[in-house]
């Protein structure tokens, strides 16, 4: 099978991986680069669990081919912060109880980060719109919207 070498920055670290033309960024991240914090929900753009930042913008990694990430910058929820040094959004999701099973969280936070980079003080409606491609089966969204609202003043684009 023909494969293509793909290089990109994953959470700031250069990675190189061989992929087939039809491999999605989602399967490449999870199965070849062990970035399993990126979740596979529907595989067709409906749920948003697979969201990552591609050159700073939140996209569905299941709808993006791995070859199309060549030369770009990919940031997952892990790239935003970790247990020792969490991102304000991550802290806020925990504090507000915006996480139940947690399956949607990685994608939610990525969508929220993309929103706050463009619009540092979004209204609740703007937040709802920004996460309209992210489904949550547990929380009923209320606490997620509050968590993002609360985190906004504490975030800066460089976070």
């Amino acid at each position: 099978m023909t494969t293509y070498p793909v290089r990109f920055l994953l959470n700031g670290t250069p990675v190189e991986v061989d992929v087939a033309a039809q491999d999605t960024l989602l399967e490449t991240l999870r199965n070849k680069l062990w970035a399993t914090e990126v979740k596979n929900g529907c595989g067709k753009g409906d749920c948003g669990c697979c969201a990552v930042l591609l050159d700073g913008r939140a996209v569905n990694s299941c709808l993006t081919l791995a070859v199309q990430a060549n030369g770009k910058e990919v940031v997952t929820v892990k790239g935003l912060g970790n247990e020792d040094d969490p991102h304000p959004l991550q802290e806020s999701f925990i504090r507000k109880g915006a996480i139940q099973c947690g399956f949607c969280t990685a994608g939610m936070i990525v969508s929220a980060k993309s929103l706050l980079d463009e619009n540092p003080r979004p209204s609740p409606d703007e937040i709802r719109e920004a996460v309209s491609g992210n489904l949550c089966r547990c929380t009923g969204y209320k606490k997620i919207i509050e968590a993002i609202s609360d985190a906004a003043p504490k975030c800066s684009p460089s976070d």
Partner: protein
Amino acid sequence: MTQMEYAKPRSFKELDGIFESAKGPLRFIAGGTNVVPDLRAGTISPRLLVDLSGLKEMAYIREVKGEIAIGALSTISDILASRVICDKAPLLFQAARHLGSPLTRNRATIGGNLADASPAADTAPSLLAMGAMVHTRRRRGKERTIPLDRFFLGPNKTILAKDEIITRITFAKPKDPSRGRYLKLGLRNAMTISVASLAVSLEPEGSSFGGARIGLGAVAPTPVRAYLVEKKLASGAMDPKNIEACAQLITKEISPISDIRASADYRKRVVAVLFQRAIQAAVNGGTP
């Protein structure tokens, strides 16, 4: 899965080279939001995937001498972020706001939306109502300009040849941008495919509707103009009686199907309602 190859031309010259050496069916990909699910589902199985996203000269939005030009690679998010579109073509802005979710809009391109030729393509009714033109390029630089109302041939079928790409979409800057309105009914509010959608653009003259254009989505095998209704609107007065008569006529001008989203009868009723609301909004200057 069959063997598939991938190429990403950086210029039209490189694209021509790919056409010359290609063996077997090829498929263009831009944002991939239609192509990737189609590949996964096995509904398409090209020999070669040609990624247009390296043709940077096709990503721009600009206004030149009263004409608005949108490069085919512009994403739906680019359209929403454009001052030109927001101020001068709000009809397209409204349509872009209804397309998918921000995650999808950050990848989805306007060229892909038209080339995919879904009857429910969200940018189509507004572009039809603004009399848009599709500019294309074939191998060795052969170009043509196709009025959008002649571009779609059927569900997922367009007039494009196998080696023909959309390079840009153009339309004249609307005379009065506030006289346009796009309305879409889906099964829910966010991220939804249209049950029916409608765009109205008016250029009122005195007490008549003047040049009215109406684009419709999801009520025929392709996005369509409602020519009969446009004519009737223009020939009558700008009053409730004429609007009511046109709302009756519009249900006769369309040929909706029944599918998982709605029945044909429901679509007809909905279009009449959308039409009345959109006209009212356009008459009032944009507020519904």
